[in-house]
């Protein structure tokens, strides 16, 4: 009898706790979603409604023509293609290089390895600004500033964060796996190609998605290193349009929506990769 009463009273405090949690999450969740709603709603307002007071979230009339208008006036398709070239190039370079490099740090014991790995990690601390100026000079000497090369080529030489990620992942495989292959006469390249690389598929997918996203998002590298307006990515192109036509909010928001949408799609298809990849780095880091 007393036990039952006790259980019921704890249930009630639990219920009120959960209810409080839900209410807080809903409250902050709505605030977090408002910018998305505002972006989409502004992208659908006819220009007369954009500057109307009082401000309303749902347009009175829907102006879908903002989308084709934005595509036309912002050179959207050209910038979209460039963004895609950048993101795919970055992704390809990162996948090819980091898995290979990671193997050298995770599966082979060689003298000096741990010291070199500390240097890899230390490069993460270096602000991008330290490298920008010399790289800008170098690239301009090499004639790279008119091409995508400054954005894509460095990705083929590894990235400290991804090397770290792959190494941590490869360290979890049992040692016997490659030792058995070594006894059978396989060399490191064969072990890498036939055993370790296939097992690293989750890490490879994580790298591919993260670097595609990074290329899609990046603003600073295209801003500094792209000198040819025909090579501009959406980030730089949209920024340029904003500085020229800052009041065209319907068009800007339509472009921002189209720019963001592929990322949302990527997220929903690869949700688990994102959540596990991020939790992994945080807990192990």
């Amino acid at each position, binding site marked *: 009898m007393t036990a039952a009463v006790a259980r019921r009273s704890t249930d009630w405090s639990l219920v009120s706790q*959960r209810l409080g*949690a*839900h209410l807080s*999450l809903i409250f902050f969740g709505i605030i*977090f979603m408002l*910018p998305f709603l*505002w*972006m989409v709603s502004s992208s659908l307002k006819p220009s007369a409604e954009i*500057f*109307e*007071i*009082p401000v309303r*979230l749902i347009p009175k009339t829907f102006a879908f023509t903002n989308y084709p208008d934005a595509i036309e006036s912002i050179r959207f398709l050209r910038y979209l293609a460039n963004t895609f070239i950048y993101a795919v190039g970055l992704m390809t370079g990162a996948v090819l*290089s980091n898995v*290979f*490099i990671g193997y*050298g740090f995770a599966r*082979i014991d*060689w*003298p*000096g*390895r741990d010291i070199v790995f500390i*240097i*890899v990690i230390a490069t993460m*601390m270096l*602000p*991008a*600004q*330290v*490298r*920008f*100026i*010399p790289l800008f*000079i*170098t690239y301009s000497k090499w004639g790279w500033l008119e091409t995508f090369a400054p954005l894509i080529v460095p990705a083929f*030489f590894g990235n400290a964060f991804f*090397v770290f990620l792959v190494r941590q992942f490869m360290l979890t495989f049992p040692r016997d796996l490659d030792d058995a292959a070594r006894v059978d006469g396989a060399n490191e390249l064969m072990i*890498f190609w036939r055993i370790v690389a296939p097992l690293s598929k989750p890490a490879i997918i994580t790298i591919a998605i993260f670097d595609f996203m990074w290329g899609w*998002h990046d*603003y*600073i590298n295209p801003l*500094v290193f792209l000198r040819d307006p025909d090579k501009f990515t*959406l*980030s730089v192109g949209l920024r340029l349009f*904003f500085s020229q036509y800052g009041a065209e*909010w319907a068009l*800007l*928001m339509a472009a*921002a929506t189209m*720019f*963001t949408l592929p*990322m*949302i799609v990527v*997220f929903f298809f690869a*949700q688990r990769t*994102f*959540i596990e990849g*991020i939790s992994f780095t*945080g807990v192990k*880091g």
Partner: protein
Amino acid sequence: MSAIPQLQATQPRRGPGLRHMSPVTRRRLLWGILFISPWLIGFVAFTAYPVIASLYYSFTDFNIINRSPNLVGWSNYADLFQGREDSWKSMRVTFRYVAMLVGLATVFDVFIAMLLNMNVRGLSLYRTVFYLPVMVPVVAASLTWVWILNPSHGLVNGILARIGIDGPNWLASEKTALFSLVIVSVWGSGRAVLIYLAGLKEIPQHLYEAASIDGANPWRKMWAITLPLLTPQMLFNVITMTIFSFQSIAAPEIMTGGGPNKATLLFGYQLYRVAFERLKMGFASAMAWILFVVILVLTIFMFYGSRNFVHYER
């Protein structure tokens, strides 16, 4: 296959140590270097060389126009310490920005992660809601927020007007501009929420049960168990957030241009302007090194300073 004998043939000159190694160790060394060679090449070309060059430039009067830089000794650094190109002003703004951002984001992200950890139904939906802003490209997010914070036609002041409040001119007022940039960054800090949530899930349940038996209330459990055991994640997030936000260029570049009256002139952005708008590459290189040293000192300070209260025993 043919790469191995070739490598071996060229390697023995690398040092006397190599000859004393056993053949197995030597072979491992060669394989190891072969595998990390892309990184080694990239390190020399895209990190080591630029770092050395940047250090050299920082002692010159180099700008793009005069293509022959003259050595000027420490004068760039001396000018920097005398406040040339708003160096002190922008450093103060940056410290204020980072402190506000890291403080606010940590409290908010831990709070949200704790709510998500209460076995609420619809966890994956909530988690998505708080993570989704991370997926918005920085230019799209910045433009959207400029529009949201528009003083007369924006969403925020529109909502405030409905409840009878006359909202401030967010990005154009010295009092609110920096804080507005902080809010935008907190909106995009969902990555940290996921890291905190993963940390919370690792806390052993029996600790809470033991505390309940001892009669601890939820508040006490939070301070005695949850927060102490979450300190590794806090340290990780605080350090990465500090490193990244010290270098921030995009948000001030797009949203405020450093204004009003230099209230959002973050150091990383000012550096970019000095280098690529004023073309004072030598001076900007000195700024970059100061930035690096500040970040390095702060990181080391946080690592060692946190040793006494970060729990690593799990």
